[in-house]
C-alpha cells in the first residue's frame, strides 16, 4: 500500500503537497505523539500506585485492620470503615442486582423495541452524565428525610440504597448487552416446543448470559464501593467506634455508618502527616479490594470468551 512516488509536474494540483519525505516524517511524529499520550495515563497510574505504597505500606498491619479509627493517628485503624464498606456492598448487591437484572430482562426480552424501552434507554444515557453527588442529594431528600421511619435516617441502609440507585443503570446496560449476545435461535427453539417467554429466559437464555451479567455486575459494584461524594451528602459519619449489630438485623441496617472512602477523605483532609500516612494505608486496602474485584471480572470475561470459542 505504498503511495506511488510520482514526479511532480504541472498536472498536479498545487495544493497537493507530494513531498513524501516530509509527509512520512510528519507521520512518524504523529505516531510517536500518540504513543507518548497513551503512556501518560499509564505513567501517572504507576506514579500514583508507587506514591501510595511508599507512604502507606509501612503503616499496614493486622492492628490497622482490627482497630477502630482514633483521634491518635498512631493507633487509628479501619475496622469500622472496612465493615461499613462490606455492609454497603452487600446491601447494594441485594438491592441492585435483582432490580437491575430484572429490568434488563424486561427491556430486552419482554419489551424490546417498544416505546417504553426507548424512553428508558434515553433516560439511562442521561443518568450516566448526572454527577454522583446529585444522587446524594436525591437520597438525602428521599431516603434520609421522607423515608426516615423506615431507613432510620442517615443509616447504612440509606447508604446502600443510594449506591444501588447509582449503579442500577450500569447493571441494566450490562444485562441487556449480555442478553443481546445470546443467539436468537435458542429463543425460537424454545417457543417452537411451546414454552412461554419467561420459561425460555429462565431455562435457556439466562444461563448463557449469566457470566456476562456477572462481569458487568462486579464492575458496577466495584464502582459503588469507591464512591465517596453521595455518602458524604447523606451524612455518613467519619468517626464511628462500633459496628452495626447483625442481630437484630433491623437495628444494624438502621445504624449510623462510615466507609473506607469516607475515612480516607477524613484522614487526607487533616493537616497532620501521621493521618495522611494512615490515609495511604487505607487507600492500599481499598485499592486491594477493588483490584481483586476487577481482576475477578476480567478473568470471568476472558474465561467466558475462551469457553465460547
Amino acid at each position: 500500500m505504498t503511495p506511488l512516488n510520482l514526479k511532480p509536474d504541472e498536472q498536479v494540483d498545487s495544493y497537493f503537497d507530494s513531498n513524501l519525505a516530509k509527509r512520512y516524517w510528519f507521520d512518524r511524529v504523529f505516531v510517536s505523539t500518540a504513543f507518548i499520550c497513551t503512556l501518560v495515563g499509564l505513567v501517572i497510574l504507576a506514579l500514583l500506585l508507587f506514591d501510595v505504597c511508599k507512604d502507606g505500606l509501612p503503616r499496614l498491619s493486622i492492628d490497622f485492620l482490627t482497630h477502630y479509627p482514633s483521634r491518635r493517628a498512631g493507633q487509628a485503624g479501619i475496622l469500622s470503615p472496612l465493615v461499613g464498606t462490606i455492609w454497603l456492598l452487600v446491601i447494594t448487591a441485594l438491592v441492585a442486582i435483582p432490580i437491575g437484572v430484572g429490568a434488563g430482562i424486561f427491556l430486552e426480552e419482554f419489551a424490546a423495541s417498544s416505546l417504553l424501552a426507548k424512553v428508558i434507554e434515553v433516560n439511562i444515557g442521561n443518568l450516566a452524565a448526572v454527577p454522583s453527588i446529585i444522587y446524594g442529594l436525591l437520597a438525602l431528600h428521599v431516603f434520609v428525610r421522607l423515608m426516615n421511619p423506615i431507613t432510620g435516617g442517615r443509616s447504612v441502609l440509606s447508604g446502600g440504597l443510594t449506591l444501588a440507585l447509582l449503579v442500577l443503570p450500569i447493571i441494566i446496560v450490562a444485562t441487556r448487552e449480555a442478553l443481546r449476545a445470546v443467539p436468537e435461535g435458542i429463543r425460537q427453539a424454545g417457543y417452537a416446543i411451546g414454552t412461554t417467554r419467561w420459561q425460555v429466559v429462565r431455562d435457556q437464555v439466562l444461563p448463557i448470559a449469566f457470566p456476562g451479567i456477572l462481569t458487568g455486575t462486579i464492575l458496577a459494584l466495584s464502582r459503588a464501593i469507591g464512591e465517596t461524594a453521595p455518602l458524604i451528602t447523606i451524612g455518613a459519619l467519619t468517626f464511628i467506634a462500633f459496628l452495626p449489630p447483625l442481630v437484630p438485623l433491623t437495628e444494624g441496617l438502621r445504624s449510623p455508618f462510615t466507609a473506607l472512602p469516607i475515612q480516607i477523605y477524613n484522614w487526607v483532609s487533616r493537616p497532620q502527616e501521621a493521618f495522611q500516612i494512615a490515609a495511604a494505608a487505607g487507600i492500599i486496602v481499598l485499592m486491594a479490594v477493588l483490584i481483586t474485584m476487577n481482576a475477578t471480572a476480567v478473568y470471568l470475561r476472558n474465561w467466558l470468551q475462551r469457553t465460547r470459542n
Partner: protein
Amino acid sequence: MSKVGHSERWKPKRSLSRWSERAIKFIFGAFALISIATTLGIILSLVFETIEFFQEVPIGRFLTDTEWTPLFANPKYGIFVLISATFLTSVIALLVAIPVGLMTAIYLSEHASQQTRRYLKPALEVLAGVPTVVYGYFALLFVTPILQIVIPGLEVFNALSAGLIMGIAILPTVASLSEDAIYAVPQSLRQGAYALGATKQETIQNVVLPAALSGIVASVILAIARAVGETMIVTIAAGQNPRLTLDPRLSVQTMTAFIVQVSLGDAPTASLEYKTIFAVGMTLFLITLILNMVSFWFVNRFREKYD
C-alpha cells in the same frame, strides 16, 4: 376400544405458566420503571427544595452577587463564584483529558497491535476504576508539592493541581468512548484514502476523525459533565475558599465542594443551608442536562451511518 388421541392424553396446566408469565412481566416492568423514577425523583427533590430556597433568597441576588458567603452572619449568595471555580478546574481538566484521551484512542485503534491492545485496555480500565478520593490524595500530597517547586505563589490548595489530576481521572472516559467511535469507522474508508496516496496520519486526520466525529463529540461532552460534577478531587485538592477568580494558582471552592462542606457540617433539614445545597445541586443538574441535550442533538445531527 377407541384410541386415546394425543390431545386428550397431554394436558399441561397452561393457566399456571400464563399467570406466572404475567406476574414476572409486571414485576420486571416495575423494576425497569425505577430508572425513570430515579430521574423524576432527582428533578422533583431538587425543584422542591430549590423553590423553598428562592422564597428566602431572591433569584436576582443568586445570579448577580459577586460573593458566596452563605455560612456568614451576613450571607451572600453569588452562585457565579462557585461556577467560576467549577469552570476553572473543568477547563484545566479538559485541556489534559481531550488531547491526551483522543490521541490515546487514535493510538489504540489505529496503531497498536492486538498484543499491545490486550495490555493497554485493561490498564486504562484500572485507571478508570481508581476512586476519586485516591486521586484527591495524589493531587494534594504528590502533585501539589512538585508544582510548588516550579510555580512560585502556588497555594497548598489550588485549582491547577486539582484540574490536572481530574484530567487524568476523566481521560479514560474520552479514550475508551472515542476509541469505540474510531474503531467503528469502516476499513474501506481508510483503504480509499490510502489508494489516493494519503499517509496514515493524513488518513486519520482527514477521513477517520471526521467520520467518527459524532461519537468523539459525545465522549467529550460526557467528559465535560464528569469534570463539572467531579467532587472529591476538587474538594481535597482545590480547597474550600469561595472566590471569583480564574487564577489557577489560588484555592477555590467549586459547586460540588460546597455541597460537601455543608453536608459534613450536618446541616439540619429545613434550614437555609440545607436548601442552599439543593439550589447549588439544581444549578449543577441544569448544566449537565444542557450538556446532555447538546450531545443528543449533535449525535443525531452529525451521525454518519455506514451499512
